[in-house]
């Protein structure tokens, strides 16, 4: 119980648009243990970003609404906090990094000030103390000559350095949880590896829990201990890294894994599985994946499968787990070529 830093339970988030209610998150349950790195994977539009921004309550509202669920962080339900209580959590106990470092920093404020802001707000430092800490943070994230860099503006930083600066901002108040939403997608392949290495280092150093959202299974293998697979606003399978990579149970997970030839080939994006995800304005009643699933059965059309526990940690929602379901051969070489990647 107490080994969990974050528990998301039955989370439902919708966007009320002119076209109707976009049911972006439809009952998401997962948790993050202290010091653990959890990867969220899934195709574009599956709700990864909405999930992570819900935790921080950064969903723009309107149109976003939290319809149901609990987000229990460090013992308190974040959804019950008022604005100023939530401000004390953001940036202080939970830090966040975003996809595009080119646009995520304010162009008219020095990098140092942008790091210092959070320290002044959360740790009550004065300006000069906060700037000193900003220099330390830049040094920590591996930016050379931080005393000079701290006074520079984002346009004087390269993309990789900006993402390092973002990490410095996110970690400045020593948060218990770091959420990184595709932190490497916008970067060059070589820089990607450096950023992931940096995150790994810092996780080891400070024991920060991490939620990493990525399309890159290489990053998942590198960083995460557990993997959550999302599809159309639902988690369809989750388990340890080994569970998902070497004993995947859901046909959608198979599809994701199959689209990457070798797990150690970093920078490989997930290729789309044939077909398109369902319309979240009117999501299917049953399993959202059935129209694209090679193993779909009649029951899949109208009934979403209950959770099946393969082990305590490895859970899947799929009718193939039902005792009456036909046994199917997993269409990818389990482990297979990937064994060497370990």
């Amino acid at each position: 119980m107490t080994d969990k830093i974050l528990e998301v339970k039955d989370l439902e988030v919708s966007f009320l648009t002119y076209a109707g209610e976009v049911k972006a998150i439809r009952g998401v349950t997962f948790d993050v243990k202290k010091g653990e790195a959890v990867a969220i994977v899934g195709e574009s539009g599956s709700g990864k970003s909405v999930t992570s921004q819900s935790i921080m309550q950064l969903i723009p509202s309107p149109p976003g609404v939290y319809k149901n669920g609990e987000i229990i962080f460090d013992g308190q339900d974040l959804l019950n906090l008022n604005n100023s209580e939530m401000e004390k959590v953001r940036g202080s106990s939970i830090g966040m990094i975003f996809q595009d470092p080119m646009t995520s920093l304010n162009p008219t404020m020095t990098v140092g000030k942008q790091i210092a802001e959070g320290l002044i707000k959360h740790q009550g430092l004065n300006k000069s103390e906060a700037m000193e800490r900003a220099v330390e943070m830049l040094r920590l994230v591996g930016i050379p000559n931080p005393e000079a860099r701290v006074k520079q503006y984002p346009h004087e930083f390269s993309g990789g350095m900006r993402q390092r600066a973002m990490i410095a901002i996110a970690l400045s108040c020593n948060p218990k949880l770091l959420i990184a939403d595709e932190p490497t997608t916008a970067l060059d392949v070589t820089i990607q590896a450096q950023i992931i290495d940096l995150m790994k280092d810092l996780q080891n150093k400070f024991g920060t829990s991490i939620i990493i959202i990525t399309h890159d299974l290489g990053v998942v293998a590198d960083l995460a201990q557990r993997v959550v697979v999302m599809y159309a606003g639902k988690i369809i399978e989750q388990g340890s890294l080994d569970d998902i990579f070497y004993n995947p149970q859901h046909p959608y997970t198979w599809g994701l894994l199959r689209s990457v030839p070798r797990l150690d080939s970093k920078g490989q994006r997930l290729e789309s599985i044939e077909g398109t995800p369902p319309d979240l304005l009117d999501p299917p009643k049953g399993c959202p994946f059935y129209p694209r699933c090679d193993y779909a059965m009649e029951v899949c059309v109208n009934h979403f499968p209950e959770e099946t526990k393969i082990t305590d940690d490895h859970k899947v929602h799929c009718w193939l787990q039902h005792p009456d379901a036909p046994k199917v051969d997993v269409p990818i070489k389990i482990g297979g070529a990937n064994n060497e990647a370990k």
Partner: protein
Amino acid sequence: MLKFILRRLGMLVVTLWVIVTLTFFLMHAIPGDPFSKEGRMPEATKENLMKYYGLDKSLPEQYVSYLIKLTKFDLGPSYFSKTQSVNDIIANNFPVSARLGIQALTIAVMFGVALGTVAALKHNSALDYTAMVIAVLGVSVPNIVLAPLLINVFSVKLGWFPIARWGTFAHTVLPATALGVQAMAVIARLMRSNMLEVLGQDYIRTARAKGLSQFAVVWRHTIRNAIMPVITILGPLTAALLTGTFVVEQIFAIPGMGKYFVKSVNNRDYPVILGTTIFYSAVLVTANFLVDVAYGLIDPRIKVGVRGE
């Protein structure tokens, strides 16, 4: 930055010289001469006057001697106001116009920025719609219509402000408002759309993710970035407000520059036409120059552009 300023100053002088030259020759292309209107003036007197003012010389000669005087900041005599030189006319009357213009600009910037900001923060609310209706009205109602309306309501009906003339601060309120409303509306609309754009930027999400309060996010991260395009148009707006005082000065019987400018064109009072035009141009070009410099100071990306050259 210094190099940038020096280059801009050089451009400023060249611009002014071009304006002087164009105005000089265009003005002389208007048919008629300063003394032809007073028809019964004896031919001999007229010739004496022309000679006295150097108008008997060829145009290029006149042009050169004018330029020489100009370098000493001497704008010459007025042919009609026997007691005042052009320098005197500007010194006596421009402060009034300038005060009017600057007060109008202050009103425009303060209320425009506030209105646009509030409208954007309360996007799609009744407040937003009200603000934008005001802005559309402000842009489309010319001050020649607005000024009498203001007089009617606030002077005649409510008696809050004097009807016309110049003197106390109360005298300045209505004319400055009449003059500033259009610019205010322009600024409000620009500010609103900039705010909306900036609020949608990724770095605003970053600021919120740091746990900053709504106020800090808006004040430190949004307004500062959204106000930059407003600063860029301040140059042209100042121009519009300073030169646009003519109509308002007429309506409120304010002793500003406007009257002299209009009269001088009718009278072919060459030195006054030239002098006021040059003076106004200098004011405008300087305003634009200052805005450029201010922009360079506020937006760090511009400095690099200069350094990179």
